[in-house]
């Protein structure tokens, strides 16, 4: 159900969002993300720089993983549905890591014609370690 659209009537508290698997992360994607985002911090490009900075080598932009989490939300609820997304970068994503984005519905609130769904979101690496944790609010339509 790619590029989905959910209706408020179909959402239940406790529902799991469809998971989204991204990666394995390659250097070229970090270089491409640097160009697209304007974040040219060498810590994401230059392994020697990242080692000297005490980070044990290159790691992905946190914002790239946040972009994955946003994609998981919009693949489920539709483009333009995200009203709020807040995350903590809980762990580093390394080259060749696979990032799986997940989510769970925490609450639904409806007021007049506005229906908001609050979601717990997170992303984990291939070892099951959380690299991103957060919350989001998506606005969804009603079938009525």
């Amino acid at each position, binding site marked *: 159900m790619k590029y989905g659209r959910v209706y408020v009537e179909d959402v239940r508290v406790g529902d799991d969002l469809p998971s989204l698997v991204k990666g394995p992360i390659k250097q070229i994607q970090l270089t491409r*993300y640097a160009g*697209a985002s*304007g974040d040219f911090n060498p810590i994401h490009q230059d392994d020697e720089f990242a080692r000297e900075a005490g980070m044990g080598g290159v790691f992905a932009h946190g914002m*790239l993983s946040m972009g994955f989490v946003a994609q998981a939300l919009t693949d489920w609820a539709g483009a*333009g549905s995200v*009203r*709020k*997304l807040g995350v903590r970068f809980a762990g580093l994503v390394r080259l060749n890591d696979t990032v799986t984005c997940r989510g769970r519905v925490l609450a639904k609130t409806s007021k007049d014609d506005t229906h908001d769904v609050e979601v717990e979101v997170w992303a984990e690496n291939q070892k099951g370690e959380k690299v991103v944790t957060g919350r989001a609010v998506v606005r969804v339509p009603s079938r009525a």
Partner: protein
Amino acid sequence: MASTLRKEVVGKEYPPYAVTVERGKIKEFARAVGDLNPFYLDDAVGRASPWGDIIAPPTFPITFRDEGADTAAFLRDLGTDISRVLHGEQEFELHRPIQPGQTYLCRAKVLDIYEKTGRSGPMAFVVRETTVTDGSNEIVATLRHVTVVRL
């Protein structure tokens, strides 16, 4: 090599700056994330959408940088450098989608600095907020950034 940050930066407001969103930059960003949603990439789908054009992905406003400013100035203001900073937290509040051809005004300020000692030693957390308004001065997005500085 413990150091401290210049806490007088708290409350500082940076000069507002304008950003005009280019259609190609939205598409480049979506492709870089690997998000091939047609509402971001396909002009025909955008035209037929409720927004009348393509829209940007939720995290796109992170690209709104002040091209006229020295990006290292903020780190110098703090008294640190790029090898010591990490992105700790990020939040977006989105009131309406960002669209190509629109010019937005961004206002950034430093809200808070606090220190904690973590597994890897003393760290400072710098909280900034950027407010993005459109041509009619309505807020379209608010970004909250938490930068972690290894002291």
